[in-house]
């Protein structure tokens, strides 16, 4: 079945620094979403990006479908960006598989 690997597992930044999160997946994906989860919070969809590059605010996602990878770039990080970032992949079977996430901590 579909495997989703995220790296790094954790990341600590100083406020203002940029973050680069990676997602690699094992099989063809028809949908790819990046989610944010605050500690003890629910999952919030950040970007839906099955291919190409998308921007929203300080977030940029680039997905290279044939290489089965996606990245999430967070520019000028803020302490409120701290939390877990999850990559989710779905294929034609519609089953959505999540990676184990990247835990980001932004220090003031």
């Amino acid at each position, binding site marked *: 079945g579909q495997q989703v690997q995220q790296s790094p597992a954790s990341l600590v930044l100083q406020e203002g620094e940029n973050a680069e999160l990676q997602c690699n997946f094992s099989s063809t994906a028809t949908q790819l979403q990046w989610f944010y989860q605050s500690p003890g919070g*629910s*999952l919030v969809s950040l970007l*839906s990006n099955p291919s190409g590059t998308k921007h929203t605010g300080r977030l940029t996602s680039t997905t290279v479908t044939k290489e089965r990878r996606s990245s999430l770039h967070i520019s000028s990080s803020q302490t409120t960006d701290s939390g877990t970032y*999850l990559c989710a992949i779905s*294929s*034609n079977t*519609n*089953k959505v*598989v999540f990676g184990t*996430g990247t835990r980001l901590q932004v220090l003031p």
Partner: protein
Amino acid sequence: NAGVIQTPRHKVTGKGQEATLWCEPISGHSAVFWYRQTIVQGLEFLTYFRNQAPIDDSGMPKERFSAQMPNQSHSTLKIQSTQPQDSAVYLCASSLVGRGTGQLYFGEGSKLTVL
């Protein structure tokens, strides 16, 4: 749009009791998903409905877990004879299109604690 609504937000049960969790998907969404999240296992897929029909329940523990979607406005996840290892946050999500292309929207989850 109220988003995906899950109730209860928190539930505490004794070992062996039954727990039922409810999910109201976003109006008009044709696909409903149930996930379970723990620190150890992360997010685990449980089951998925499309247009109220069960499509994939490969993640459901067979013996004590069951899920239904009696109408387009709600789905239930029932756990019989709850065990401490069932303790988790149970998340429901819906999407507009049930073809692997729809964007998922999650509820805030139901935290189940089995004593």
